[in-house]
């Protein structure tokens, strides 16, 4: 197995990251924003795995595990914030939360 150019794996990670970025920037529904964030995080994990595979080291997978942990914590907090937001404003429109401005 293997023998896939590292370049291609990294480019795939780059594409996924950019797609996630577009999602974060264009969506108004906060659940979508969070989902796009997940896409971006996952792309980062992919990059680590590709690098780990290139050097045949476990470190890439370990970094991925840490990203996974981060994602789990982030989603738990993020979703509970969404629930709070929905309870308070009855909407998932992120533009409603624009009171914190200069």
């Amino acid at each position, binding site marked *: 197995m293997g023998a896939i150019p590292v370049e291609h794996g990294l*480019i795939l990670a*780059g594409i996924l990251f950019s797609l996630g970025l577009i999602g974060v*920037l264009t969506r108004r529904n906060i659940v979508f924003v969070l*989902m796009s964030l997940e896409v971006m995080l996952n792309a980062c994990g992919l990059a680590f*795995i590709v690098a780990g595979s290139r050097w045949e080291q476990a470190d890439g997978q370990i970094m*991925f595990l840490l990203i996974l942990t981060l994602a789990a914590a982030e*989603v738990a907090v993020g*979703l509970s914030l969404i629930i709070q937001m929905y309870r308070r404003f009855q909407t998932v429109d992120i533009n409603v939360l624009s009171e914190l401005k200069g």
Partner: protein
Amino acid sequence: MMLLFYLAAAVAVIATIGVIVQTNIVHALIYLILSLLAVAVIFYVLGAPLAAMLEAIVYAGAIMVLFLFVIMMLNLGQSTRQQERAWLAGRGWIVPALLAAVLLGQLLYVLSGVEGMSAAEQVGVMAVGTRLFGPYVLAVELASILLLAGLITAYHLARKPKAGDE
């Protein structure tokens, strides 16, 4: 193997595009799960079986269930479709798309210089485990603290406010 990689990569990209353009949130979530599973396949192809399985168990299996759970709780199913469509209309997507395109171009430029092939060997569960609890034990401790903090925060935030609060 090569074929499997490119196939999975294509699925991942298409599914991710599906995530960001869908108006039905449940469908978007299904696309996201699909994308994650495709990435899991890529992990396996790249010789990272533990990461592949954890991607499926934790990411696709647990984190996404949380999303679905919240969608169900807030009942965001189909009623929000019209709203999503309205929100997506307009030119709001042009600038982000351009920016992302520039970023992608830069990434492609930077990454095209990378040489090397992915390894033929699998890095097994044992190897990851021994390194994880050897040199990376501090990271494990920190991750556990992070998870604990996340747990407490999520519990506290999602709790129904008591009668006395605010």
